[in-house]
């Protein structure tokens, strides 16, 4: 699913302020809903959209480590400027939706997006 489509479904707005390269935009292949970074870290999150209520810079760093496609903050929580700045530096796309986590998940699921592979798998397993 394209990020534009995600944005439309979630009635979301972009949180970045600089011009990001268009070719840096990635297809969202799956979704991950969590506020716990340990959880996000061990999910095979490559190309995933992270839905979260946390807006600190650890979320961005986590995104960088697991190669997430984008992050959407729920409940209308706008990230702090430092968080946005770090995300821009790392090329991580940020959206903000006023929907709750539950509603955001429900709508994306309805449109066909599925969960990223869960943390039960050992991350030593080759993809």
């Amino acid at each position, binding site marked *: 699913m394209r990020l534009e489509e995600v944005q439309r479904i979630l009635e979301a707005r972009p949180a970045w302020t600089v011009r990001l390269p268009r070719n840096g935009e990635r297809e969202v292949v799956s*979704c*991950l*809903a*969590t*506020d*716990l970074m340990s*959880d996000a870290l061990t*999910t095979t999150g490559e190309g995933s959209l992270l*839905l979260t*209520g*946390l807006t600190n810079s650890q979320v961005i760093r986590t995104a960088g480590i697991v190669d997430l496609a984008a992050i959407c903050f729920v*409940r209308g929580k706008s990230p702090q400027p430092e968080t946005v700045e770090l995300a821009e530096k790392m090329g991580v796309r940020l959206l903000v939706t006023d*929907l*709750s*986590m*539950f*509603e*955001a*998940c*429900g*709508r*994306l*699921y*309805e449109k066909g*997006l*599925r*969960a*990223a592979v*869960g*943390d*039960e798998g050992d991350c030593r397993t080759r993809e």
Partner: protein
Amino acid sequence: MTLAEIIDRLGLQVRAGDAALRRDVERGYASDLMSDVIANGLEGDLWITLQTHQNTVAVASMKGLAGIVLVNSREPEPDTLEKARRESIPLLVSELPAFELIGRLHGLGLTGLRA
């Protein structure tokens, strides 16, 4: 839809609160942050979370939530379980990741809108 029906439809496992499964549920709330649920959880919400410690039960009880569903096969800590049983808070476990479980709950008609 009652909690019992949801449990049946999604194959949830009941760990505590058997006596409180007749309750009607219309809304869900998903969060792993206590402060968020304290601030935004509404009475009757079914709470989806990864958090397994006993504070969850205290929050659910205080806010009058319909129950707690632990995702990713997370099992409650012993004191969480004990507290849930004592306070008769339904404590359920799903093997699904949060996104998947919420998607299916939403499909059953639960909403996350905060009307």
